[in-house]
């Protein structure tokens, strides 16, 4: 009798553990056939760290969106989304020089909701939070920017600092800082009379 009981316990225990294990992990994103759904849709609870990061508010001016373009959905709502990498017929003014061999529009812009940007984890964010998107690849710059070291800082050294979005200085499609015409040089000693 006791022998049977042990046998049953030994059979049931591992499966119970496995079930619990699966419940924690959710869908394995690396072996799933379809790309993972956003964490909200997968029913995952956002981890503590993410909540903390959301609380960090950076006072930034509105994002520098091209005039007459936003909201993108005003045109895109009627266009069938085409996930194929190709040369665009519209947006020909955009010069794309941002790791152009490997990246393209839908790495940052969401295919379903064009008014949003899409993080690598599937989370959709507004343009006013675009620094989180840039920070996915440009970690050191993001870290420095948060403490007020990367980028132009205005406001108060003692008190409220004013931030700029990455896109205020770097065109996201062509991020290298453009050369400027220098202001006039000082007077040479021989020119002074």
């Amino acid at each position, binding site marked *: 009798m006791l022998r049977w009981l042990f046998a049953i316990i030994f059979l049931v225990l591992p499966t119970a553990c496995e079930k619990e294990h699966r419940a924690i992990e959710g869908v394995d994103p690396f072996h799933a056939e379809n790309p993972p759904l956003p964490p909200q849709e997968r029913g995952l609870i956002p981890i503590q760290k993410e909540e903390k990061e959301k609380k960090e508010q950076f006072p930034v001016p509105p994002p520098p969106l091209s005039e007459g373009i936003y909201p993108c959905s005003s045109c895109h709502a009627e266009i069938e989304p085409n996930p194929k990498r190709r040369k665009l017929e519209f947006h020909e003014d955009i010069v794309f020089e941002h790791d152009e061999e490997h990246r393209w529009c839908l790495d940052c812009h969401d295919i379903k909701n064009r008014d949003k940007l899409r993080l690598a984890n599937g989370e959709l964010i507004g343009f006013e939070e675009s620094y989180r998107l840039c920070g996915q690849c440009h970690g050191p710059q993001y870290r420095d920017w948060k403490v007020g070291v990367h980028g132009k800082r205005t406001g108060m050294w*003692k008190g409220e600092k004013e931030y700029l979005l990455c896109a205020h200085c770097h065109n996201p499609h062509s991020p290298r800082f453009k050369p*400027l015409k220098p202001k006039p040089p000082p007077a040479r000693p021989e020119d*002074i009379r």
Partner: protein
Amino acid sequence: MINRREFVKTLTSFFALSALGCGKLLVPRKRLREMNREELKETLARLEREYRKKYGKEIKVYSTPPQEGTLFGYALDLNRCIGCRRCVYACVRENNQSRGGSEKHNMPVHWIKVFEMDKRKGVDFVEANLYYNPEEVPQEGHFYMPVQCHQCENPPCVKVCPVGATWKERDGIVVIDYNWCIGCRYCMVACPYGARHFNWTEPYLPPDEINTNTHLLGNRPRYKGVVEKCTFCIHRVRLGRYPACVEVCPVGARKFGNLLDPKSEIRYIIENKRIFVLKEELNTLPKFFYYYG
């Protein structure tokens, strides 16, 4: 041949003289004293009166004191600076420097100098070009190094002033009393950074370009024959604001903050970046740091 009596006489007089010399040095120099509150108020009112008469404009002269627990520091990112000279002209406007550019007024004063340097040669002031003027900056193979007052903790300029017209404030800013300066320019010779500038002529300051928010020890209009220099925008930073050059820099190469605050930007840079100070070997202990971000 010297005889014994003469020898002893010379020796005694020598010792007497040197003793006198030492004695003189031991006497504390009590020529200067700080103005009391009443005198300061009177002085500010008098200066405002004088400026009104001279420029026909209401100019406010403040004497905002240092904030407790502050020691100002500055950092400049040499990797980012593109040499556009926006800072130079923002400084001129903010601090009421003498304007130039015309035949009659050709004595402009710039507190910030931007040097164009060859990347292969590194920081080398002999080969540096102060007068670069290409169509676009940055130029290939060059980097740019702005130099201004380093607000040394051990300022040689202060040591040499024969009249005590320049000193270091409690928040670390080296200031000049333009009414006490006699224009001997010893400080300009002593400064290893070329940060001090002299008004050889009457400063040219068009009234409509005056910044009317001024500080007694900072950007108030100067006179002919006095020395002036960067004060980290004393009239702004003592109120918690950033200096004008920090706010104008289009690439964000200029950083400013309180060295005594462990959470400040400047402390983050000192603790996390590769920094250096100019002419470290002179032991001037600048509070102006260059870094590679």
